[in-house]
């Protein structure tokens, strides 16, 4: 602004000297912008004497006639004139330029008389002053008017440049809103811009919709009917910009044949500009604007439009990134929830289901599967979900071969496998302690590279947590106690081969006998363990397995064998079995059973069982170690039976002791249906009632384990 003021002052003094005027400039309120400057003595003296009077007379509001932009002579005092013109800028600001004074030719004497009469007290040589005052002649009039016009234009130019700073402040404001106000839509920003910007009659926005373009937003004069107009890429002015992806503008297009498209929508632009805004997702939005009155653009109009376009681009990218960030946070918090669930999951089955289901959820995949490795045997288990386009079994085998190659440095990073159909499968290994225990695979189709990369990170995290959780659950489930028992049992062999051989036989016999008695699986297991570990003192066993009753069973068994400290009937069934079996194994005869307990039912059953057992003894290979004897849950046994999935569910509940009514409630089916299922199960298992069905399941389970 200072620079412009200097220019104006320079202009003022140069012209004042050239024409002998005093020149000044006021704004629309009559406030002085440029104070009077020049050597016109008449003017300087009168301004000095009549400052307020002249100021009031020249106030633009009182002089409506001056709204004309051509210079006029105004008689400020009779016979004394000032030349003035009005200057209006694009931003609606108005200024008034004054140059004076001048007198009409041949009026000198009259003026002296008049001035002396007006200012009788002043000692002023009016005659000398008036001689040096410019005289109005027809030729001078034309020259001055012409000059005034030019000066007016010059001042317009200079003052317009100063308003550029207001454009910058508008831009800054728009940028600030675009960045900070998240909910402000592009349409809002366009309106904000349009409110302030002169020089453009309309603005609009066109967006891609189903392979074509549609005008989605219009602001301004004469463009309302253009809203919603569809066009194709390459069609007309706008369609061309869409294809080239470069800013373009056209002037005087009202006669251009390509503008027919606009006319069809009752829209008649004379000039048009268009800026293609690249969006973060790869699409393009077209920003267009122009004039319906003016056939061309100033260079600042063009730059301004570009700036607006760039600003809207930035706005869209910022918001896209913000949205993406929010989404990442949401997903991350979900992942944390899932991790918590997985760590707290009660069993392996649950963890596996979470991995398969959440894997599919997280990335909106086509299918997901978990290939789990059975370390002991070179086999894998496959749990799958969704609609795979490939043969999932064959795929699992292939993946297993790639990941479980037996090398100690197995792959521990995710890979992307492309199927024959071109679908991509993200494969993330589940591992712990350098050993790959499984692979989580999720099929992904129709997703961009960036999305894919993002998904890989999530799936990798999921699979790492999965690997660790499986290991944790495995430790609990993996009968670490079973292993401990086995180790202690095997240790006996190292010191006393004979005792070990007896313990093997005892455990074998006790297991079979306990089965024969129809005892519960955990009880049978404890009895077997007691027989295996009977060589140790009960105190040692209690210290080693504080949560089990093995020590009690051993203690009772031994006490019963000695037959004096404990009454038979007072002992637990486990103690009874152990006593009978140990006694039999040590003496190798049933005759050694003390007579006083022969009347007992358990003892009688044992005797008949052993008699029967002896007959088939030859066929049983007693050397076969019952090591690693694993008693699965009943569910797996049920699964092996030839039953429908629903029947399996019903049978599971029957075993849990539920009656028909309870089963109906649990499965949300009618009591009648339950009855049907139960009857079918009895037929298939060839049993007469529930008790036999349960017994049959346990028998099968025991034989299979």
């Amino acid at each position, binding site marked *: 602004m200072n620079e412009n003021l200097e220019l104006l002052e320079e202009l003022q003094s140069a012209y004042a000297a050239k024409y002998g005027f005093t020149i000044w400039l006021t704004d629309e309120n009559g406030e002085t912008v440029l104070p009077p400057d020049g050597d016109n003595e008449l003017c300087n003296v009168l301004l000095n004497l009549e400052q307020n009077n002249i100021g009031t007379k020249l106030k633009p509001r009182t002089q409506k006639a001056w709204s004309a932009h051509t210079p006029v002579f105004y008689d400020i005092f009779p016979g004394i004139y000032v030349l003035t013109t009005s200057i209006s800028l694009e931003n609606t600001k108005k200024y008034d330029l004054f140059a004076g004074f001048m007198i009409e030719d041949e009026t000198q004497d009259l003026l002296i008389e008049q001035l002396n009469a007006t200012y009788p007290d002043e000692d002023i040589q009016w005659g000398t002053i008036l001689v040096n005052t410019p005289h109005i002649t027809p030729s001078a009039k034309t020259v001055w008017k012409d000059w005034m016009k030019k000066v007016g234009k010059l001042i317009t130019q200079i003052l317009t440049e100063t308003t550029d700073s207001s454009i910058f402040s508008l831009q800054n404001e728009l940028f600030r809103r675009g960045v900070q106000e998240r909910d402000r839509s592009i349409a809002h920003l366009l309106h904000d811009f349009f409110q302030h910007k002169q020089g453009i009659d309309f603005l609009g926005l066109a967006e891609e919709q189903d392979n074509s373009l549609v005008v989605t937003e219009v602001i301004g004069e004469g463009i309302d009917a253009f809203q919603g107009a569809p066009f194709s890429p390459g069609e007309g002015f706008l369609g061309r910009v869409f294809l080239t992806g470069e800013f373009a503008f056209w002037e005087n297009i009202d006669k251009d044949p390509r503008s027919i498209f606009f006319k069809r929508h009752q829209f008649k632009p004379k000039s048009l500009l268009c800026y293609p805004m690249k969006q973060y997702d790869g699409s393009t939005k077209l920003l267009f604007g122009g004039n319906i009155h003016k056939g061309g653009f100033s260079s600042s109009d063009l730059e301004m439009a570009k700036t607006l376009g760039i600003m809207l681009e930035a706005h869209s990218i910022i918001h896209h990134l913000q949205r993406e960030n929010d989404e990442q946070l949401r997903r991350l918090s979900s992942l944390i929830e899932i991790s918590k669930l997985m760590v707290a999951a009660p069993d392996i089955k649950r963890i596996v289901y979470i991995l398969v289901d959440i894997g*599919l959820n997280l990335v909106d995949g086509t299918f997901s599967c978990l290939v789990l490795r059975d370390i002991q045997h070179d086999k894998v288990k496959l749990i799958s979900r969704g609609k795979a386009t490939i043969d999932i079994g064959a795929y699992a085998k292939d993946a297993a071969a790639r990941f479980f190659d037996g090398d100690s440095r197995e792959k521990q990073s995710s890979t992307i496998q492309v199927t024959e159909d071109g679908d991509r499968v993200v494969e993330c290994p589940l591992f712990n302690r350098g050993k790959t225990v499984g692979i989580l695979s999720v099929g992904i189709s129709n997703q961009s590279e960036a999305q894919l990369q993002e998904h890989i990170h999530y799936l990798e995290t999921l699979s790492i947590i999965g690997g660790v959780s499986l290991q944790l659950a495995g430790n609990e489930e993996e009968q670490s106690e079973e292993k401990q028992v086995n180790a202690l049992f095997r240790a006996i062999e190292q010191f006393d081969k004979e005792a070990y051989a007896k313990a093997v036989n005892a455990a074998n016999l006790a297991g079979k006998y306990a089965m024969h008695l129809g005892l519960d699986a955990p009880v049978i297991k404890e009895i077997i363990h007691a027989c295996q570990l009977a060589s140790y003192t009960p105190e040692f066993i209690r210290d080693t397995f504080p949560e089990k009753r093995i020590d009690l069973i051993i203690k009772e068994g031994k006490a019963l064998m000695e037959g004096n400290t404990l009454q038979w009937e007072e002992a637990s069934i486990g103690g009874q079995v152990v006593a009978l079996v140990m006694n039999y194994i040590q003496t190798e005869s049933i005759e050694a059973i003390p007579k006083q307990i022969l009347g007992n039912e358990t003892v009688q059953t044992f005797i008949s069982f052993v008699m029967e057992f002896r007959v088939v003894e030859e066929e049983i290979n007693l050397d076969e170690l019952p090591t690693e004897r694993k008693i699965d849950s009943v569910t797996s046994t049920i699964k092996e039976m030839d039953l429908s999935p629903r029947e399996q569910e019903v049978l599971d509940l029957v075993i849990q002791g539920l009656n028909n009514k309870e089963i109906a409630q649990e499965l949300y089916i009618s009591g009648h249906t339950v009855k049907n299922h139960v009857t079918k199960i009895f037929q298939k298992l060839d049993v007469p009632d529930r008790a036999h069905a349960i017994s049959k399941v346990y028998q099968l389970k025991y034989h299979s384990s």
Partner: protein
Amino acid sequence: MVSKENIPLQMECTMLFQSNPYMIETVEGLSIKLGRKADDILPIIEQLEQQGILEMLGDEISPLYRYKEPKIIQDIDFAEEVDSI
């Protein structure tokens, strides 16, 4: 397709069904259980059904949903043929 904003809800639904494999529920019932609007839940349930995590019981007018267990194939030998159970 479920918009990405809904992934947490989608997971919540999945975990609810997974934790209660015998539960059979309507969309309205779910909206009460999860404390969400039925309109928000419906597209998610449809997506989960599409992915095979849920199965629809009953008819189109009053659909009921329940968890569908994943398919399990056991004992695939690296070299042998696959036998599906």
